[in-house]
């Protein structure tokens, strides 16, 4: 047995010197033997419904009853629709209606399925047979005939010969999806430049920072250390509902107050965008635009709930974890003569996720 080695696939490599296999003299070639033997088909086992006629009759009865139950389920669904109507403004009626209609139709369909399977398994004849798999490759005659058919079709349709028709067809196929690209333009606002829309928000110089949703202006003295306020620009709360939501989706801002010494700035310009430890950052995540507002007042971290991007407010909202690519844009703010917080300008960079024409 010393000259039998295990192959990497588990088969045994047997040297041809083994006379049991080849009956020839010593050589270097190896042949593989399959250690796994085809166990063949297991012996046929009869079901209880094959041996006991009473069990067979019982199974047949169950199958029939399941079909009747399904009919009952369908009827129940109709009655549920009639007797539990959905009434306007009544959530209980909606709940009952959907519950009973759902239960009834689920029961009706499930009973059909179970009956069909049980019929097939317990009542229908149980014969085992073997169908040999035929080879995938056709006979040479079939293969030749297939090629002939292709040639004939080409000849008769003139696909290769009539190049004008053929090229016209290929061109038509290519041109067909092109209108979709033009139609996609219709998804963006038509009367304005969508590129510009992405780059600017509702904020502009002199707009007061106001509370979401009331639109009450915020004074710098309203904020204590550790405060966080959800902010919309002055005038946004008065917009019609649809425009308000459109504008809010870009202009939402989180206003927080830290100790001024906890804030690190890369430039005096950025520092001048804050007021006495009060900073305002866009709430729209630079990853895919979820609202980032999970603010931890001691670590000064902002967490985006969608994909766990984390921003560090004390370091100009730098990304410290997660898939976001850029810091959250800072809204430049200051106070006006009456002590209210006002925006110095719009955001200096586009808010939210990347888009094609974004410069950086």
């Amino acid at each position: 047995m010393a000259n039998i080695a295990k192959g990497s696939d588990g088969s045994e490599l047997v040297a041809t010197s083994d006379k049991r296999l080849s009956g020839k003299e010593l050589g270097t070639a190896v042949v593989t033997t399959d250690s796994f033997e085809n166990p063949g088909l297991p012996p046929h086992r009869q079901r209880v419904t094959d041996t006991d006629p009473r069990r067979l009759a019982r199974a047949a009865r169950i199958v029939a009853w399941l079909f009747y139950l399904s009919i009952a389920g369908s009827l129940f669904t109709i009655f549920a629709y009639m007797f539990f109507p959905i009434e306007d403004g009544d959530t209980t009626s909606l709940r009952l209606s959907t519950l009973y209609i759902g239960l009834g139709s689920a029961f009706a369909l499930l009973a059909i399925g179970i009956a069909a399977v049980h019929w097939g398994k317990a009542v229908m004849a149980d014969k085992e047979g073997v169908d040999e798999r035929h080879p995938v490759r056709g006979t040479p005659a079939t293969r030749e005939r297939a090629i002939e058919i292709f040639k004939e079709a080409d000849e008769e349709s003139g696909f290769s010969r009539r190049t004008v028709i053929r090229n016209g067809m290929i061109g038509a196929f290519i041109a067909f999806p092109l209108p979709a690209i033009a139609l996609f333009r219709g998804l963006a606002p038509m009367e304005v430049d969508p590129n510009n829309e992405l780059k600017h928000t509702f904020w502009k110089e002199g707009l007061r920072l106001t509370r979401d949703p009331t639109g009450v202006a915020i004074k710098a003295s309203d904020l204590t250390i550790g405060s966080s306020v959800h902010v919309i620009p002055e005038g946004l709360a008065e917009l019609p509902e649809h425009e308000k939501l459109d504008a809010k989706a870009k202009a939402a801002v989180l206003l927080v107050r830290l100790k001024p010494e906890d804030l690190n700035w890369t430039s005096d310009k950025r520092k001048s965008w804050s007021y006495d430890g009060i900073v305002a950052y866009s709430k729209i995540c630079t990853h895919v635009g979820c609202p980032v507002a999970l603010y931890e007042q001691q670590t000064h971290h902002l967490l985006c709930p969608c994909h766990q991007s984390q921003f560090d407010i004390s370091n100009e909202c730098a990304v410290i974890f997660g898939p976001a690519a850029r810091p959250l844009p800072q809204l430049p703010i200051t106070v006006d003569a009456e002590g209210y917080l006002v925006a110095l300008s719009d955001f200096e960079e586009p808010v939210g996720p990347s888009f094609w024409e974004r410069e950086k």
Partner: protein
Amino acid sequence: MSQKPDSNRKSGRRSPLAIILLVAIGLITTGAAYAMASSATASAEVDLSSPEVIDEGAKLFAANCATCHGLQAQGTENGPSLIGVGAASVDFQVGTGRMPMQANSPQAPVKPVQFTDAQVQALAAYVASLGPGPSIPSASMLTGGDVAHGGELFRINCAMCHNVAGAGGALTEGKYAPTLDNSAAVHVYEAMLSGPQNMPVFNDLNLTPTEKKDIIAYLEYQKANPSPGGLELGSLGPVSEGLFLWIFGVGAIIGLTIWITAKSN
């Protein structure tokens, strides 16, 4: 003679309705007594400015808190200064069992309260005497809010961390926003006022006392009204719902497949 008392019993004392009535009376009496007792403790106004109470609080502070917060509550490297945090902060932190903290961890968890109500009040009185800060809200500031308005405010200011149903959620590095299902109204109010741990501060200029009352009304409504959609699975959203479907939905499909392909016996 022997017949008469028997029939009396049957007609009166042995009636099953009488037992139900008796149980109902018992439950109502104990319930009412409990409600009175608990409202009595809530409204037991201790004078937080009395020198005796402050003195008692100072002793408790020195014995239980000073190790981390310093003998004068000035703060050490293990704990922040408590000067100016106010009585509300102490009542929240000690009254929910978060303080004294058991171990240094990302966040102080809720645990059984370590002090009696009177002791918590004394501690609050002592810390409040160190510097002006938010005080404990009175019972009248906690009830009668507008549920719908409270819901809107909750969704804007609180739901991002505490979950729209108040079920809580994860924050960064082991911290979390706790569930509000078991929070007492007074503690919710104090948390908004004081901004415990990593929660931002919502002072009275940001959320007015009326707005705080509305938020509490919304939370109380959430507690009292079960989800109209049926089993809420902890209101945790895709995690618990996905897990439920994976285990029971896919489990049922696997079970059916095995049944369909197995040979009938």
